[in-house]
């Protein structure tokens, strides 16, 4: 498969297969206006299948690596400058996330209290387990 390479921008590789659109949504990248290429279900030596996202004219500062770590922990971010990958970043799991995920527990105070942030803390790194600061319910992605 041949996909036009980008000149300046980023390549998010090793995105879990089938989740590229969700990742874009979490990263606040609007697929209707950004110049991007999506490769979905490409073959991957490491993971069997993967998605790849290429976005033109965007720097690594423009995306939130914490959010990426949260929704696509295996992803890598290649920084492309003049058609070459000049740097590679790996997201890490953030310790604390604010207003990215919403608590799914109907008994949680966040479902009724107005004006409070949705906050989750990393409970277990290997299991990638996040729990709500308020009710300790496990986060659903």
């Amino acid at each position: 498969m041949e996909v036009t390479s980008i000149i300046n921008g980023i390549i998010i590789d090793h995105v879990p297969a089938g989740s590229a659109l969700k990742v874009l949504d979490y990263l606040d990248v609007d697929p209707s206006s950004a110049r991007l290429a999506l490769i979905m279900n490409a073959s991957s030596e490491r993971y069997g299948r993967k998605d790849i996202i290429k976005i033109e004219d965007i720097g690594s500062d423009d995306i939130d690596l914490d959010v990426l770590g949260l929704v696509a922990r295996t992803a890598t971010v290649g920084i492309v400058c003049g058609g070459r990958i000049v740097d590679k970043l790996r997201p890490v799991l953030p310790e604390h996330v604010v207003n990215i995920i919403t608590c799914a527990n109907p008994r949680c105070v966040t479902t009724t209290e107005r004006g409070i942030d949705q906050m989750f803390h990393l409970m277990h790194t290997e299991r990638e387990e996040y729990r709500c600061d308020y009710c300790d319910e496990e986060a659903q992605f």
Partner: protein
Amino acid sequence: MVGMSVITLDSLSVPQIQDLLHKARYIDAHRRQVAHTCEGRVLATLFYEPSTRTRLSFETAMLRLGGQVIGFAGAQLASVTKGESISDTLKTVSNYVDVVAIRHPKEGAALVASRAASVPVINAGDGGHMHPTQTLADLATIQSRFGRITDLTVGLCGDLTFGRTVHSLIETLCRFGNVRFVLISPNELKTPQYVLDRIRQTPSCSYVEVSDLSEVIGDLDVLYMTRVQKERFFNEDDYLRLRDTYILDETKLSLAKDDMAVLHPLPRVNEIATEVDSDPRAAYFEQVRNGMLMRMALESSVLGDDLPGYEPLETRTLEV
């Protein structure tokens, strides 16, 4: 602990819990001396759902320390808050009082309250989430019966899936260590994995899971009974069958050690036969007294009001 909010027991260190246990014993033995400790203080009990026994315990604790009490409960609620957010209510009430005890049906409500308040907030139960002063009462009762909360075989019986007081007690005892847990429940109501993991991560603690109370009751130092609630079951037959398997009566109790202590967070339905009440091993009404004493210890501690004549545990230990 001065100025501290107590939302879960995780916010208290092991030495702080030990000091509270020690304080509660001191208060019990020096009721007259401590009767003016919190004079001029006001406690607000904000009970967004009725729980009369918990509210009375918090209020009596403050009154016995010489302080006063305001608050609302259940039915009066609508007219008091008029749909106001928890945060706004706490910001308002903080101007009136020195300490707040809050009970709310939503999980995490006490944390929201403590973040909004400028005075210490004590969680008096937030939905099925946390009820730290219940666990403090449990610990105080075990302490008063055995003089220690370690080196014990602790049986927990009934609904071990949803009973959060049970989870909180197990997790807290694991912090102290050296406890053998005997988890007695029907298959349908077994202890959740994260609680079992917590025991496994504690090298000095261990557990076994069984379904027959009579089989293990003779090994136990403490038997913590819980309610098996009807709404946990899909059909009435299962409920009735399981409910009656986990009733403690004199026949089962006759198999237990002479100094075993029977605890229950109360109110009970039928899981402890009333004939057990007169047995010296029944400790559940003592647990109620200990709950009040622990709330007295907690209220005076977060207010920073020293109990006359009280020596903190650390200095006493150093002297020995």
